[in-house]
């Protein structure tokens, strides 16, 4: 989709720190990305990369203590056209935006639903809160939402309780709740991870369809590169608290520049569809660094086959543009890509 001049969401140099008995961890260490109007940005990373904490920080939901947002800006352009820094908004004003203009869907749908209220009451609550509709009108919106999501027999579902539905259905109800106020941005944190593949396919199709119908933007947090390839317009790859590569989806899969991205793509098992028999999986040696003991330079250097002592372990490389809309955090990307400096 066409990019407008100011992005819908612009996260700039975000820093989140966790203070625990084990020490201080910079879980998010200067993260910047933007989500443009109507696009899907996937933030992909492995556990501990900081992808979920980044999305929680955007919503002002970092648990405090032990967490604390220690720096950065989260600029969101509202329906009224004003750009606000969500990190500096008073809690009341943030609550007005959250659930209305920005909505969220989490990984565990069952633990996000209240077991003692019907599904209808829970979806309608959002509508009553943000749109000031009375109970019956709000329930009608909830029913319309379920019908829009293609849920069979929506009226019966409204009076059902969470324990009466499956995990896949629960995730669809969460999506209905998130979309009831027609948000401009949906933050989806691993929404399909706990689901079986055939149900995951239904949920991904649903999010893509709703994105078209409502015209919203999606910030999609996932660890699954297959899911990224299916739904994202652009991708930000995170590693050890930092964004290490950012690119349009096609460019990222075709010409990954960061050795970590390259390694990640090679370690994903793929179904053999063509004639080539799948070779051995190429694993990335070693493990991600502990957030309490980050290496001095590039955080991927200890696992990187291309790491150069004196260069890669000296300083954290800066994010550098390597082509249009494609940026990478690697001191050696030019040498590795055969591009003259």
């Amino acid at each position, binding site marked *: 989709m066409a990019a407008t001049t100011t992005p819908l969401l612009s996260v700039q140099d975000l820093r989140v720190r966790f203070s625990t008995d084990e020490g201080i961890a910079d879980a998010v260490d200067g993260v910047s990305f933007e989500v443009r109007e109507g696009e899907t940005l996937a933030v992909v990373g492995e556990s501990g990369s900081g992808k979920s904490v980044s999305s929680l920080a955007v919503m002002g939901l970092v648990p405090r203590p032990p967490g604390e947002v220690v720096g950065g800006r989260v600029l969101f352009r509202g329906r009224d056209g004003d750009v606000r820094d969500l990190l500096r908004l008073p809690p009341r004003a943030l609550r007005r935006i959250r659930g209305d203009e920005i909505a969220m869907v989490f990984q565990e749908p069952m633990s996000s639903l209240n077991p003692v209220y019907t599904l209808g009451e829970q979806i309608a609550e959002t509508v009553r809160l943000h749109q000031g509709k009375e109970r019956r009108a709000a329930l009608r919106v909830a029913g319309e939402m379920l019908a829009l999501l293609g849920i*069979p027999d929506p009226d019966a579902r409204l009076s059902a309780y969470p324990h009466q539905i499956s995990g896949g259905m629960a995730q669809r109800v969460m999506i209905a709740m998130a979309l009831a106020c027609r948000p401009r941005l949906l933050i989806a944190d691993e929404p399909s991870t706990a689901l*079986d593949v055939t149900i995951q396919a239904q949920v991904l199709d649903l999010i893509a369809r709703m994105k078209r119908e409502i015209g919203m933007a999606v910030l999609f947090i996932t660890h*699954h590169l*297959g899911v990224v*390839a299916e739904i994202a*317009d652009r991708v930000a790859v995170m590693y050890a608290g930092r964004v290490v590569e950012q690119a349009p989806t096609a460019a990222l899969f075709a010409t990954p520049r960061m050795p970590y991205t390259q390694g990640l793509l090679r370690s994903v*098992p793929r179904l053999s569809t063509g004639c080539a028999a799948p070779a051995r999986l190429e694993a990335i040696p070693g*493990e991600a660094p502990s957030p309490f003991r980050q290496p001095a330079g590039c955080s991927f250097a200890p696992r990187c086959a291309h790491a150069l002592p004196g260069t890669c372990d000296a300083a954290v490389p800066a994010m550098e543009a390597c082509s249009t809309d494609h940026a990478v955090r690697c001191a050696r990307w030019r040498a590795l890509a055969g591009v003259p400096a």
Partner: protein
Amino acid sequence: MTDVLLEVEGLRKTFPVRRGPFGRGGGAVRAVDGVSFAIGRGEILGLVGESGSGKTTVGRTVLRALAPDAGRIVFDGTDIAGLDAAGLRPFRRRMQLVFQDPFSALNPRLTIEQALAEPLLIHRLAPTRAARQERVAALLAMVGLPAAAMQRFPHAFSGGQRQRIGIARALACEPDFIVADEPVSALDVSIQAQVVNLLADLRERLGLTLLFIAHDLAVVEYIADRIAVMYLGHIVEIAESRALCRRPLHPYTAALLSAVPVPDPAAPRRRIVLEGDMPSPANPPSGCPFRTRCRHALPACADARPVLREVAPGRFSACIRDDIVPSEAPEERRRD
């Protein structure tokens, strides 16, 4: 198959369920409802299915961690389905399990040495502490961990390292057969590849026979020689891995394969979207278990349960529709 290590025939396992707060009106969940397969010596059989398909119950039952309701489990020539605890003892050493969650599978109060020495003590495989330490060090080396890991406790290790320890423990008493139940599902992609490669290497080196249970078809295709697909307590298809993934014969296998997200934005997307959820195993449909979600279903599919039969050499499918090739002509899927 010339040299069969494990042969399972007509395996059934039901679990009683209580309905309502006062335990009235109890029914039964037919978790495994007449499953038959065989695993050759040195072979890796992948067992694939979604949650509730009964794959884990099959794994636990063939190890006799659960007692089957019916059926035969012939391990190396002996039917162990009806054996009591004493009768099973000689088989316990030869069959081991690798768990899904490496965090809860290890006792947090035991050092790695204690955890790995336990099976050696139980089966009296190493008489002295020095012999046990030597064996534990060898096991750790086998899974790519330093001998110094012995003195440490599980919390000091990452998920990938703990899964290596779990594999080392399963190998401690030199088993012939290992059931690995979702051994890599809890791991990150880059670590998952390390553990899959490790299992493949160990199979080569030790001649292990594996039942590899997983929900991720792409992982299973990498490691397994043959794949069995389960749905609602039944095996619906068995075939050699590549053949099954390239040209599935059962409509459920085709739908499952088409739902796997492909890590390639340029790949053509042909997805068969299944409507609804898997029926409850407490109340399965008559006839073919998949017919309620199958787009090829005919009225006849409700009449009798289709048998798993050999439709081509080495290819077994439980579907009465011989006239269709389910992998062809699925609807084109729209891309944004």
